[in-house]
């Protein structure tokens, strides 16, 4: 969010939001922080009241017990000293004083913080110093003690020690934020020279967001659980379709991106974050990767709750909540699939759902930059607790489906484009045919030539189905090939669908279409066949679900008794 957008959210502040008093004490102009903080606060449902001191008044306010600052009785105090001002002070010193600059400053900050602790109960958020290298000594600068960069780094180090020594002190790592965003984006010399504003306009919301994160975690609003998807999220590829030997993890190519993410997830687990899996997969297929893939870093005993099935993810997350007994707002959900993210966001708005970048290479940088798992404490989750959760999740009885999911599907405004096979769709049909293993009833595959033959054939007919919703177009996601095997009976030679769109009503929409078509040409029956493979377990019960009757290894749907299957997809 840029500054102007943040400012706009000020009008959303309401009386029923949690009130909080925050003081800003800075040695530079802090009006932008004031606005950004209130705006970002509103975004997180805080109604902030802010006391802002004049920038020359920090000491007066802290040293005098009767000051406006202490009268205000803030719950949080932001100490916003800036490197630019510090630098001016540093340059006035002689060489020997320069060498002991950090020690002197740390002592001074400590005295201010101690005084605040003595005179109030306010928690203190201290912005550490962004690094400025003046290159007075070129690259020798870091080796020489009397340089500014050397002294800044020492101060930042001392602040770490101070924060473990003083209970009420929390360091906001502005220096790391500058590293992430780059000084060219965080500092605008024109604003500093003209108005003593030490950060560029759009960096203030970033600082404010971090402040609110610290506030939230001291208030106990921290994240406790990371729920993640599997296919194309923690490994590359779709294990159900591609097979365990073809998914991408490890040291080669794009696999490394997924492995790096896995390492980060394990570090979170070591820190006490509970891990849970929600994935549209066969349980055995998914768990097999955790058990037997040599490059998997996360293992089954790292996961507290493992939900791999074909139910919607909202239900699955609900189950996780029951097992773990934690609130939705302490959960984070990561998934590469926008449909899944949006459904969770809209049905369980309390959960944090980061928008993942399209390119997996950027997953980790993106997630770390969000700093979702901010914490002001350090507690460990022991192995025993993970085991307890695992047992609990086996015991849990699956409750009713999330009723709202149906309404969500309606709101999606899904439309499907139905076409007879055409040369235009040929490449995608061939690709789908080669890649799909899970929703694939007979595993008959079609080459370009096969599809061309079907297009020109009088006996066979192929239909392709597209899917789109208000978030975008998924393109061609399913096809069916039919022919008349016995008189007036259509036989489904194969039906293939992308598993990403399973359980949205697409199967129902397609069978309704086939029934209608069959009826329109005067045929009496549709016959289907399911040839089991290792991978097509997800469609084991498909024909049964769609009202077919089992008869001598085949599945039969008489047209005159076929019921319309419920779905909310419109034909486009």
């Amino acid at each position, binding site marked *: 969010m840029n*500054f*102007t957008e943040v*400012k*706009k959210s000020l*009008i959303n502040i309401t009386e029923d939001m949690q009130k909080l008093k925050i003081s800003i004490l800075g040695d530079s102009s802090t*009006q*932008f922080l004031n606005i950004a903080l209130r705006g970002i606060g509103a975004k997180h449902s805080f109604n902030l009241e802010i006391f802002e001191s004049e920038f020359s008044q920090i000491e007066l306010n802290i040293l005098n017990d009767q000051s406006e600052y202490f009268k205000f009785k803030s719950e949080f105090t932001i100490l916003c000293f800036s490197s630019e001002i510090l630098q001016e002070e540093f340059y006035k010193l002689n060489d020997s004083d320069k060498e002991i600059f950090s020690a002197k400053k740390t002592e001074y900050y400590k005295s201010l913080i101690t005084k605040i602790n003595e005179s109030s109960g306010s928690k203190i958020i201290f912005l550490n110093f962004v690094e400025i290298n003046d290159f007075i000594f070129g690259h020798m600068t870091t080796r020489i003690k009397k340089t500014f960069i050397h002294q800044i780094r020492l101060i930042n180090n001392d602040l770490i020690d101070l924060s473990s020594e003083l209970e009420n002190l929390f360091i906001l790592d502005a220096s790391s934020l500058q590293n992430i965003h780059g000084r060219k984006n965080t500092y*605008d010399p*024109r*604003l500093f*020279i*003209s*108005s003593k*504003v030490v950060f*560029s*306009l*759009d960096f203030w919301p970033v600082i404010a967001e971090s402040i609110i994160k610290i506030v939230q975690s001291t208030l106990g609003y921290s994240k406790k659980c990371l729920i993640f998807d599997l296919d194309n999220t923690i490994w590359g590829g779709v294990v159900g379709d591609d097979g365990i030997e073809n998914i991408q993890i490890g040291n080669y190519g794009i696999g490394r991106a997924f492995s790096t993410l896995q390492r980060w997830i394990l570090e979170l687990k070591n820190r006490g974050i509970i891990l849970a899996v929600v994935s549209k997969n066969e349980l055995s297929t998914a768990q097999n990767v955790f058990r037997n893939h040599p490059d998997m870093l996360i293992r089954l005993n790292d996961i507290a709750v493992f939900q791999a099935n074909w139910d919607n993810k909202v239900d699955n997350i609900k189950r996780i909540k029951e097992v773990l007994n934690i609130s939705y707002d302490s959960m984070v959900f990561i998934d590469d699939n926008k449909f899944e993210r949006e459904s969770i966001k809209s049905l369980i708005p309390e959960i944090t759902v980061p928008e993942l970048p399209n390119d997996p290479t950027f997953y980790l940088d993106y997630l770390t930059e969000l700093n979702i798992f901010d914490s002001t404490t350090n507690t460990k989750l022991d192995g025993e607790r993970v085991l307890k959760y695992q047992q609990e999740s086996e015991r849990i009885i699956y409750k009713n489906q999330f009723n709202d999911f149906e309404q969500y599907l309606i709101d999606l405004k899904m439309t499907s484009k139905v076409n007879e096979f055409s040369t235009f769709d040929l490449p995608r049909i061939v690709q789908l045919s080669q890649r799909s293993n899970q929703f694939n009833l007979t595993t008959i595959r079609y080459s370009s030539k096969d599809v061309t033959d079907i297009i020109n054939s009088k006996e066979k007919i192929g239909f392709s189905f597209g899917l789109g919703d208000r978030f975008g177009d998924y393109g061609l996601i399913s096809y069916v090939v039919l022919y008349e095997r016995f008189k007036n009976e259509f036989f489904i030679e194969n039906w293939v669908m992308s598993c990403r769109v399973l359980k949205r009503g697409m199967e129902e929409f397609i069978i309704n279409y086939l029934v209608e078509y069959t009826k329109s040409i005067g045929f009496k029956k549709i016959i289907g066949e399911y040839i089991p493979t290792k991978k097509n377990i997800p469609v084991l019960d498909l024909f049964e679900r769609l009202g077919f009757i089992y008869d001598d290894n085949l599945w039969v749907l008489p047209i005159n008794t076929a019921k319309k299957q419920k779905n909310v997809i419109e034909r486009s």
Partner: protein
Amino acid sequence: MSLEEILKIVEVIFREVIEDSTLVIKYDTNSDAIDEWDSLINIELIIAIEKEFDITFDLSQFYKFKNVGQMCEWIKTQI
């Protein structure tokens, strides 16, 4: 882009930043005419205009223009 078109875009930016969707900006509008237009708002306006037109103001230009018209004319020379 014509001066007129630039003014229209600048007007949209003013409305966003000053948070007044009915604000009307003319060539002779200056900071006296708009109460909210203080030095901080001025920074916001300039940063927003820079982003919109992909141009850069020198600091000396932050307070140089006597009215919006002068600024628009300068923008025209930059794009």
